[in-house]
């Protein structure tokens, strides 16, 4: 895992060196002041010196100083902006999980019924209608027309209400994935022998569904954890543009437009760390929940 991370950091470092233009492209800069800036950031050293220095710094949690955002340490900027994204993302998962669960369960219980078709339609629509379509539409109706919720983020006066619309835009995707997964998982469990046995024992319909079916179909829900995190990260890049949220996705996009190598690198590394941690977490959860997987994983 650390080797993967090391290689990712190296690859992004090489990539950032290949970016066109310099961060100090301002034409007002004289050659001498540009030289001073280059020296300050160590950009005039040989590439291998820059590389080794960067790697050593990263190992100590120092992602360098931003070239653009008031020369602040990148680690500091990330730590400042990431919690906002994390909050919106976590809230989106909460917003999406409950309707997704309800829809999925209802669809499975009424397999091939009206509710099933409705649930499937919502699930498919959630994948087909992307957040960058939904975001502006909700912004228009809920924010502008009906004035229920704030239209965008106000950096000077952040309030909880401002995070609702971004979270809702992301939540639709969560609903779609969760509903789809719960439905297919429940259908599988409903066909198992132990469910038939539970019914044969004379348990009430509710007890069967609650105690046997639901529990067994919800446990493997960790499988969706990874796609959810991917979707939330991808979504945050877009959603934060729409709602002007100063989060990590916004930082990434802005640093790309101003050629801020240090910040581009830092955010990419940050994304990868989250990604790899999510992978790891998923594997660990798997092993805890289903002992059979440990056996299978041991042989690999």
């Amino acid at each position, binding site marked *: 895992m650390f*080797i*993967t*991370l090391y*290689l*990712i950091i190296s*690859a*992004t470092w090489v*990539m950032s060196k*290949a*970016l*066109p233009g310099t961060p100090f492209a301002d034409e007002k800069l004289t050659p001498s002041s540009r030289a001073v800036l280059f020296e300050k950031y160590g950009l005039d050293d040989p590439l291998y010196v820059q590389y080794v220095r960067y790697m050593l710094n990263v190992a100590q949690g120092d992602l360098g100083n931003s070239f653009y955002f008031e020369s602040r340490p990148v680690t500091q900027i990330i730590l400042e902006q990431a919690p906002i994204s994390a909050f919106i993302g976590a809230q989106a998962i909460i917003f999406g999980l409950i309707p997704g669960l309800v829809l999925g369960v209802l669809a499975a219980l009424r397999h091939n019924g009206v509710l099933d078709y409705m649930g499937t339609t919502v699930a*498919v*629509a959630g*994948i*087909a*209608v*992307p957040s*960058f*379509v939904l*975001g*502006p*539409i909700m*912004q*228009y109706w809920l924010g*502008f027309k009906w004035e229920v919720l704030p239209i965008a983020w106000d950096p000077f006066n952040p309030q909880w209400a401002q995070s609702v619309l971004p979270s809702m835009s992301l939540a639709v995707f969560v609903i779609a994935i969760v509903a789809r997964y719960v439905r*297919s998982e429940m259908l*599988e469990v409903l066909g198992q022998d132990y469910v038939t046995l539970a019914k044969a024992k004379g348990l009430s319909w509710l007890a069967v569904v609650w105690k046997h079916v639901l529990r067994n179909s919800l446990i493997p829900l960790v499988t969706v954890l990874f796609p959810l995190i*991917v979707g939330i*990260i*991808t979504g945050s*890049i*877009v959603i934060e*543009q*729409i709602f002007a949220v100063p989060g990590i996705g916004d930082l*990434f*996009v802005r640093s*790309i*437009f101003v050629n801020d190598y240090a910040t*581009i690198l830092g955010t*990419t590394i940050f*994304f*990868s760390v989250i*990604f*790899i941690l999510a992978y790891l977490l998923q594997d660990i959860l798997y092993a805890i929940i289903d002992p059979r997987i440990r056996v299978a994983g041991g042989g690999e």
Partner: protein
Amino acid sequence: METRNREITPDLFQSLDERARDNEKITGPSIGFWRDSWQRLKKNKAAVVSLALIVILFALAFVVGPLLSPFSASDQDLARRYQGPSGGFWFGTDEFGRDMFVRVWQGMRVSLYIAFIAAGLDLFVGVTFGAVSGLLGGKVDGAMQRFVEILNGIPVLVVAILAMVILDPGILTISIAIGAAGWTPMARLIRGRVLQLKDQEFTLASRSLGAGNLRILTKHLLPNSLGLIIITLMLTIPSAIFTEAVLSFIGLGIQVPNASLGALIDSGAGDMRFYPYLLVFPAAVFCLLMLSFNLLADGLRDALDPKMRK
């Protein structure tokens, strides 16, 4: 007693009902893999509807759309800017008086063009990489899998954005960026399938007859993975359309005056407060496109590979 000596003459026999002879047969006529899959696909209502929808959308974008409207996508006329949908301009006009009906279909063509090139790259790189990795195995496989792991460690969108920054924005480079970021699932699936197939009897038989790696790959392994390849490809197309739209939406994708659906949605979202139709039409076409491709891919997965159904 008498019967024993009785002569057997043809009139003692009665011909059996022709249909009764086939009574014991329970199999239908033998049909090939593709006919079988097609029949299964036809039973899936959602897949058929989306296939029809895709055909209609393609017809609108490539044939009907450009023919129906007398305007071209770049016809500007400031006298008719921001007109709502009407008999003259079915989807209204934008800030430069360009006809949105034509622009939406042109945008869809651009989106599809990018998606298909990206999917083609996916097909070529992903299949080659996965097949080589799976077939050679050992150290080569290990090294190639590490490489995939690195790419998988970064979100696809981030890879595509980074690639976009290095390359100059253009239709071809966007396709390359999306293709470069998105081929790993294909490679992983193909590698898995090749690993599974390469020790099976027919491969061993072929190998013992002296066939080389290349022949085994092209004659045995790839034809047997065709269903998987088609399914993955069908899932790649909507996700490539999506990635392109995101890139255009944040301003790293297609550059003006060209416009993809994503770019149209982006500019529509900016003007939405006053001219909602500028967002609604491209967004609707985009959603329909995504919807039908996703549903068709689902249907194809069930039809081509019943074992994968879940």
